[in-house]
């Protein structure tokens, strides 16, 4: 016979100002099965919790209903109190009469009645609660970091420095990401490579970090603490163990006129190349689409000049299988190219470039050795126009969000331009100057006040070419929306930051959710900003949304902290609120028919096939089995199971039915 205790919390005045708590308690005392009912000002306070613990012991309660706030707030508190009273912690239910009642209704009889109904539902539910035991899952204390940009580097170093093994996978031939392409960084104007390359070297030298460059994720299986990952190590056509990075191959390669990705097409590179001088690892790769040997079967000059004999034309992609306990997604972002903008000439004007290309022009290691020269004729532009929000905050272009970094880097570009072209004039078309951040606003003021950048508030409607000049037509909304026409020598578009190539496929491989712009979604926008909805997979940096360097680094350290916490124990404890498939004694075995229609709906790949065999080892039945380490208790399988053979522990069909019944039959 159930003996349920009901504890009505006033939550100061949060509840009691609207709901008549003593009355609710009085009515609840008469519910069938309720042995004890009371109300108290702050149930979550120490005396409040003692009240619960003592009542359990004194009245020999078999379950409790704490009628207070959302279970998101204090369910763990009262589960602990429940356990302290000697009950299984899962014999505790929260009846939410705050968010679901007092906060959303006026004072009155109807509100009281709703609170009573909520309590009644939970009383009926808790009567049917089962004692549950936490699930223990072993943890492989190795982390996988996907992406070797600044976020990935930071996460990998932090995890490695916490004493754990790290496997880093980078798609490009070198780590460094977009940060290695930048010239200077805002708001301090320190050289990007100067601060990044030491960290890159650290990654290469850290004994806890195993680095796979020119590699991609092939597949991910498993669950938190126990992921099995296949990594495709693309063939570099170079034996990494032999190559000493002397660079003879890249110097002697006769096929040098290939567009340089690192310089965003503004320079050339040989078919065998290292993306940039400080690349880590300093090992070249052969671009098979460009290499003369791969195209025509002749050349092999690199092989002849290679002293350590490291060139391997017959090298094939290698699949490496690794076991990891946690995954940090740091795959970064991409930007829209100038061809995205019909109004700015679809990318056909050579002197309209994007922000990243300007970074390369301003960089000492760039194609112009740091001189600002326009791509078409190499002239130094005397009038330069920067267009902020090119694509961003533009629902018509399908990108309604703010790309966040452009205001700051555009100010930086204007400053760098002025430092390099003293007699030049920079114009910046902007919608708002968004410079929130430490020393950020000061930085944009500096662009305006010290470096005479002329900010024009308005958008650019059209850019076209006339007599070798780019005519930028825009509006100045602070001057009565007057049309502004500037004859510019060069235009830099601060194009929208977008999700990286292949983000969607990767998200699907990892079963993490992503938004309509293909940015990965965090588990909670405020309280779980670096977790994904899939346990054990975390995200940092601009793969989540456009972020600047300090934010990316902070998030990466946050991820590293989360992973270090995960690895602090050899076993994981998970909430047992997961789906279970019915099991019975033979000859039924289960009401599960083994149709496996539940398998495709599971977002976590948690449903497996279990074979039931007789004594002789003959297969009797195939049944669905839910891996407790993978299941997140979402309940989608419960909804599709026609024979209702799946139940969520703590939210069983029986419990739900009893709740609805209690509500309808009140």
């Amino acid at each position, binding site marked *: 016979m159930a003996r349920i205790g009901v504890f009505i919390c006033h939550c100061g005045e949060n509840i009691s100002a609207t709901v008549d708590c003593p009355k609710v308690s009085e009515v609840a005392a008469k519910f069938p099965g309720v042995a004890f009912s009371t109300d108290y000002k702050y149930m979550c306070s120490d005396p409040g919790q003692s009240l619960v613990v003592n009542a359990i012991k004194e009245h020999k309660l078999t379950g409790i209903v704490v009628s207070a706030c959302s279970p998101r707030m204090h369910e763990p508190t009262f589960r602990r109190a429940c356990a302290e009273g000697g009950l299984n912690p899962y014999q505790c239910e929260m009846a939410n009469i705050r968010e679901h009642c007092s906060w959303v209704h006026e004072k009155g009889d109807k509100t009281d009645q709703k609170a009573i109904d909520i309590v009644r539902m939970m009383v009926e539910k808790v009567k049917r609660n089962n004692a549950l035991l936490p699930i223990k899952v072993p943890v492989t204390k190795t982390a996988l970091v996907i992406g070797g940009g600044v976020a990935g580097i930071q996460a990998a170093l932090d995890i490695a420095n916490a004493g754990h093994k790290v496997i880093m996978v980078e798609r490009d031939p070198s780590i460094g990401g977009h940060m290695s392409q930048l010239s200077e960084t805002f708001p301090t104007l320190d050289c990007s490579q100067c601060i990044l390359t030491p960290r890159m070297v650290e990654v290469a030298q850290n004994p806890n970090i195993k680095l796979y460059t020119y590699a991609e994720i092939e597949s991910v299986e498993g669950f938190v603490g126990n992921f099995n990952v296949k990594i495709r190590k693309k063939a570099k056509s170079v034996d990494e163990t032999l190559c000493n990075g002397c660079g003879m191959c890249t110097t002697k390669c006769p096929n040098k006129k290939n567009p340089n990705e690192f310089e965003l097409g503004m320079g050339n590179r040989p078919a065998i190349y290292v993306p940039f001088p400080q690349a880590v690892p300093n090992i070249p790769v052969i671009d098979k689409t460009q290499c003369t040997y791969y195209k025509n079967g002749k050349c092999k000059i690199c092989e002849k000049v290679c002293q350590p004999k490291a060139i391997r034309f017959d090298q094939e992609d290698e699949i490496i299988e690794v076991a990891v306990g946690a995954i940090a997604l740091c795959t970064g972002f991409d930007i829209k190219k100038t061809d995205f903008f019909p109004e700015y000439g679809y990318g056909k004007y050579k002197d309209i470039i994007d922000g990243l290309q300007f970074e390369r022009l301003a960089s000492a290691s760039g194609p112009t050795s740091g001189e600002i020269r326009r791509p078409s004729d190499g002239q130094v532009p005397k009038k330069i126009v920067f267009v902020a929000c090119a694509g961003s905050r533009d629902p018509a272009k399908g990108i309604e969000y703010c790309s966040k970094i452009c205001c700051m880097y555009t100010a930086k570009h204007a400053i760098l331009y002025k430092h390099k072209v003293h007699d030049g004039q920079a114009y910046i078309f902007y919608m708002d100057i968004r410079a929130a951040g430490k020393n950020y606003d000061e930085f944009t003021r500096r662009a305006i006040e010290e470096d005479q950048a002329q900010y024009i508030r308005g958008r650019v409607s059209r850019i076209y070419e006339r007599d070798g000049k780019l005519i930028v037509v825009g509006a100045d909304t602070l001057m009565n929306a007057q049309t502004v026409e500037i004859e510019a020598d060069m235009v830099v578009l601060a194009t929208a930051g977008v999700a990286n190539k292949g983000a969607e496929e990767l998200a699907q491989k990892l079963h993490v959710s992503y938004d309509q712009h293909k940015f990965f979604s965090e588990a909670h926008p405020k309280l779980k900003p670096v977790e994904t909805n899939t346990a054990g997979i975390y995200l940092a940096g601009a793969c989540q949304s456009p972020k600047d360097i300090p934010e990316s680094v902070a998030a990466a350290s946050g991820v590293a902290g989360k992973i270090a916490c995960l690895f602090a124990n050899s076993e994981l404890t998970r909430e047992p609120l997961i789906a279970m498939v019915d099991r019975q004694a033979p000859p*039924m075995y289960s009401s599960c028919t083994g*149709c496996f*229609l539940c398998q*495709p709906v599971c977002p976590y790949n948690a449903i497996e096939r279990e074979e039931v065999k007789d004594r002789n080892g003959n297969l009797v039945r195939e049944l669905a089995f839910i891996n407790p380490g993978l299941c997140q208790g979402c309940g989608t399988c419960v909804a599709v199971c*026609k*024979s209702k053979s799946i139940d969520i522990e703590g939210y069983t*069909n029986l419990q739900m039915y009893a709740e609805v019944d209690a509500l309808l039959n009140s």
Partner: protein
Amino acid sequence: MEDIKKLARELLADNKVQLVLGFENGTANRVRPAFFTTPEAVDKLIYNEFCIQNIALYLKKDICQHAASLAITANPNVVRSILQLAAENQIKEEKIKIIGITHEGKCVGLLDFKAAEEFSKTQPKGLKDEDKALIEKIQAMSLEEKFDYWVEAFSPCIKCYACRASCPMCYCGKCNVESNNPQWIPVAPHKYGNMEWHMMRAMHLAGRCINCGECNRSCPVDIPLNILSYMLSDFVLEEFESEAGLSAVFTPALSSYTMVDKENFIK
């Protein structure tokens, strides 16, 4: 018919199967499903225009489940049922030999699943003229009229569950309707209880029904259940481009999501 018999006899004689599932003559000029286990017994096997019951139903019964291998005389309805059962992991290809028979009663020999898929495509599911007329009538109704029509149509239901018993896709060991804790579906045959039962069955069959019409044939009070599932199949085909019974590899519309789903019903 003789070639069907010959095939069945050979299969049993060569020990290729332990059991042949087909029809024999019953009493009073009726035919009835029968299980043949010896080549001699096959003398009694028949196949004629009266052999219309969907005997794929018996594949999930103990006698077939316990047989290591079996053959079945399969008209197009049975072939579709077998493919769908295979798609739902209820029967394995190596266990079953399909003796294919066309709508006209012509034997096409043994079919493996691949051949059965081809066969299914050439043997479209039949719909009687009166059924077509009824579908047109229902489709012309407004949403409210449709609801009223079905409430009325279900009202004579006596909850005998013959529809369930005759359906090869209703293979759950324990049906929800038998659960009394919680009692999902009221057992008493009243108007809305009947509605709940038939809606549940319709939803469970949506995208899985192979439209053999057995539910309607077995119904003692003539509820046009086949029309309900036919319309649902049509809807699923139109919305999700998915059709049951055409392939042994199949992901049903209700438990899958693809980028090309039209989702018109939400818009």
